């Protein structure tokens, strides 16, 4: 129980507690008053400090990531871009200023008109790009005269350049200014003067990674928008560096061997699907595309009959011709429709109803088993083979090999091609599938259409014993490996694969159709399959004429697929030369040269390059 002294103590405590509480309430009201002062009385001032002209937040464009080949050869980098900006609100008369500027540096009427239009559309404090890519001489002139040119700001930006130009035009693509639709994605960053985004190729596919994250600077500006001092700076993140799977040496040779032709070639590692080289010929120089393409240059590129702007390696669709026969053979073996020793006698043609199907060899091959039919590319054998197997099994096998689909290659624009079948015919033409069509598909003709990339994937999956590798051109972002779909087994019997391998071995090494392109180095032997794809437009008048008397656009496409070494396949290649004639004659020798170099360099056996990480930095551009 409480004694007297305790209640004295209790009363003192109560008194002091109330006293303290009063004091606390006083302090509390001081704080509330302070908040009132900051957020109500001085709100305008601080709102202005935060958002308005007094303090501007300017984005700092992050440096774009670099692109390397697998051994660290720089494929795309950035250099300094001397340029001139105009800040509309700092000049009384933008047109007069621009005319004044035009006396110092070359500035066409069209350019002036465009700048004036941009000035009108943009906010007055937003700098507008006047011209860029100036040489040092012109840039100095602008700098010296800048005080007299109201609103003109000399500035150093970033310019993307591609040291290997046409060798890689379709792979890397190029960067260019964003369109108005693009700008909506990230208005702050993309409306920076001179900011560029990937327009095609890897530049586009990996644009988000290459772009990086912008930094920001908080600057105090005067009433005219001139920067007085920087209050704060937050560094951005530079774009990620991209290491490609390409080996530039192989890429260069491949491009050179295709020069003057219209065609494509792809070299791929068969275990992982790393693309070692991918070329569509002819190429073009992407460098002018990053600044300005003159109308003349554009017209030339568009009117060139060899179509340099098309990336044929992934968008070109061709009948695969005889290169498809290994798939037909496997479909026959796996479905049990044929066994390798079954013989078919080739007399040079086969009749079906009132239609005659020809073999490419007049007079025929005589009695063929599967091995000799692949080696000699006997059409009659494969008509029969396809008939017995049926279109369903062939279609299914083609799809297992990745035909008729896209792989998500990091080069935009892949076409899926076409693997025809009963359902497809029913759907598109409302007709029943005919046996004649099965005959055509059996030799890779008819409605069947494949891209060169698909040919290479097909060959690689054949070479690796039936594993579903996915083709890709990007190895790592910075030092992180790219995510890939898992490799699954296509469930093909090894003995069946071996029969097809042997047949393709014989094509090159046992006096088959491509015997002249044999690689004579021990351990490097290549197995392959040639193909000659007829153009649908061919008329009877042209049939049988000597090659050089047929107009170019009516000549056959030359195709070749191959893998090597035969004993332990490591690389696959596909070549398509448009209107090149016979596959064994035109395409196979290119495959031989490229494959030899690939095997000599053996790029996937060597350590790949790892880029050193960059810290932030980059060019400031007022927003």
């Amino acid at each position, binding site marked *: *129980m*409480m004694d007297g*002294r*305790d209640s*004295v*103590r*209790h009363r*003192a*405590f*109560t008194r*002091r*507690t109330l006293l*303290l*509480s009063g004091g*606390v309430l006083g*302090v*509390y009201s001081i*704080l*509330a008053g*302070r*908040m*009132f002062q*900051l*957020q*109500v009385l*001085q*709100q305008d*001032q*601080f*709102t202005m*400090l*935060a*958002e308005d002209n007094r*303090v501007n*937040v300017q984005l700092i464009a992050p440096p774009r990531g670099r692109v390397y080949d697998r051994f660290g050869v720089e494929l795309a980098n950035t250099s300094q871009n001397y340029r001139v900006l105009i800040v509309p609100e700092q000049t009384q008369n933008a047109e007069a200023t621009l005319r004044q500027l035009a006396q110092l540096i070359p500035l066409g009427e069209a350019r002036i008109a465009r700048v004036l239009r941009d000035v009108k559309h943009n906010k007055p404090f937003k700098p507008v790009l006047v011209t860029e890519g100036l040489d040092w001489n012109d840039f100095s002139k602008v700098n010296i005269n800048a005080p007299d040119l109201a609103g003109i700001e000399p500035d150093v930006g970033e310019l993307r350049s591609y040291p290997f130009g046409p060798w890689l035009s379709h792979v890397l693509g190029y960067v260019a200014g964003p369109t108005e639709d693009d700008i909506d994605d990230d208005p702050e960053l993309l409306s920076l003067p001179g900011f560029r985004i990937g327009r095609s190729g890897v530049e586009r596919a990996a644009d988000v990674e290459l772009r990086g994250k912008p930094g*920001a600077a*908080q600057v105090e500006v005067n009433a005219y928008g001139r920067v007085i*001092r*920087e*209050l*704060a*700076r*937050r560094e951005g993140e530079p774009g990620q560096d991209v290491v490609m799977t390409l080996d530039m040496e192989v890429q260069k040779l491949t491009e050179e061997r295709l020069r003057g032709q219209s065609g494509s070639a792809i070299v791929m590692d068969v275990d992982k699907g790393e693309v070692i080289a991918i070329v569509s010929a002819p190429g073009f120089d992407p460098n002018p595309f990053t600044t300005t393409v003159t109308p003349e240059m554009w017209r030339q590129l568009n009117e060139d009959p060899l179509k340099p702007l098309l990336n044929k390696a992934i968008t070109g669709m061709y009948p695969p011709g005889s290169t498809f026969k290994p798939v037909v053979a496997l479909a026959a073996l796996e479905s049990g429709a044929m066994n390798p020793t079954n013989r078919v006698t080739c007399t040079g043609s086969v009749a079906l109803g009132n239609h005659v199907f020809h073999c490419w060899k007049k007079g025929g091959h005589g009695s063929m088993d599967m091995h000799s039919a692949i080696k000699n590319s006997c059409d009659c054998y494969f008509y029969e083979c396809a008939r017995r197997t049926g279109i369903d099994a062939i279609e299914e096998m083609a799809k297992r090999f990745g035909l008729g689909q896209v792989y998500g290659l990091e080069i935009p624009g892949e076409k899926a091609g076409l693997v025809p079948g009963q359902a497809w015919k029913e759907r598109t033409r409302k007709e029943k599938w005919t046996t004649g069509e099965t005959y055509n598909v059996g030799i890779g003709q008819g409605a069947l259409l494949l891209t060169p990339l698909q040919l290479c994937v097909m060959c690689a999956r054949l070479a690796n014993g039936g594993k579903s590798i996915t083709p890709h051109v990007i190895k790592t972002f910075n030092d992180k490996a790219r995510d890939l779909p898992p490799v699954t087994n296509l469930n093909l019997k090894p003995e069946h694969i071996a029969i097809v391998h042997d047949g393709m071995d014989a094509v090159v090494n046992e006096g088959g159709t491509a015997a002249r392109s044999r690689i004579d180095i021990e351990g490097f032997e290549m197995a392959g399959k040639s193909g000659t794809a007829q153009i649908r437009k061919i008329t009877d008048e042209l049939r049988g004429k000597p090659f050089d008397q047929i107009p170019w656009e009516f000549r056959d496409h030359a195709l070749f697929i191959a893998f090597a070494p035969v004993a332990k396949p490591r690389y696959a290649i596909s070549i398509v030369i448009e209107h090149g004639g016979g596959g064994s004659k035109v395409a196979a020798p290119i495959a031989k040269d490229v494959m030899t170099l690939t095997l000599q360099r053996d790029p996937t056996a060597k350590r790949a390059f790892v880029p050193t990480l960059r810290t932030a930095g980059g060019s400031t551009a007022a927003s």
Partner: protein
Amino acid sequence: MPLNDFFGPTGRELRFSDKLLEINWILVGLITAICCIGFAMLYSVAQGNLDPWAGRQMVRFGIGMAILFVVALVDIRTWISLAYPAYGATLLLLVGVEVMGRVGKGAERWIDIGPLQLQPSELMKIALILALSRYLHGLHLEDVSKPLRLIPALLLILVPAGLVLLQPNLGTATILIVGGCGLLFLSGLSWKIIVPVIALGVAAVPVGWNFLHDYQQERVRTFLDPDRDPLGAGYNILQSKIALGSGGIAGKGYLQGTQSRLNFLPEKQTDFIFTVLGEEFGLLGVLVLMGLYLAVLVQGVLIALDTRSHFGRLVAMGVCLNFLLYILINTSMSMGLIPVVGIPLPLVSYGGTALITVLFGFGLLLCVQIHRGVDIPRSAANAW
């Protein structure tokens, strides 16, 4: 006076079910509400993500609440008997950080115990309240002002405060000293001592200046003139003021704070979270939070006034004082009223030890209320 009515249920030992019924759910609700504001702000500073702060803070809140209830249901007489041992152990830990503590942000504040990181200075805030309350519980009113009785109390405060200052952690040392002296004041320390000491303290400011670390001196200098180095030491204050000021009355809207979104605010998930609140919810949001804090404090003071044992009253007020100091220091720092010190906004800022020790404190407060009628003899202060 019918003491029994005034002091609530007495006369028999409290059963577990009695204790559960006595839990102050209003206080628990207020605490939870404040923590929810904290989760919302942590979600916002992570740009609308539970990761990395809000989610983890929720887990810690769960752990902290469990601790709170356990602490509340323990008999208050157990706490008085644990007061000195707990203080001694925490003091040892504090010495330990000096020896094996690791360096973080220029201050040695943590101790690693397996996967746990412990800040003994945080624990000391609780231990000091308990030990000092126990010591003062044993003194008559007139004894408090006697030098021989006062010196042990001062030592209880100044020894840990000195160790914390060595780390160096000015904010926590301030809370220990001011909180401890507050308890002396509430125990009836004579004005004849209070007035001269305050006068002496004011006079000693220039001397104390020289004992401050360079970075502490720099903070004070830039506080007095934040514009002299807007990119360096004045940066935090200026950015915080810009953010708060631009929030206005209604704020910029949830997840819309430009200052924090563009990362111009430093330490926005810990020390400057009040600023984010002010920017996004404006004066209204700030007043709601301050109102909730005030409601918690009022509850605490009411509990203290309604408690029979001197120990309980002092513990209740000690918890309130600590909580108040957190609030005052953090908010006035964010408003640019005092120099920058690393003190979190209680229950809102990201940080595990601080949250759990604050909830531990509220557990003690609830414990005091549950046991408000329990009589503790003065001699209990001296029994070992």
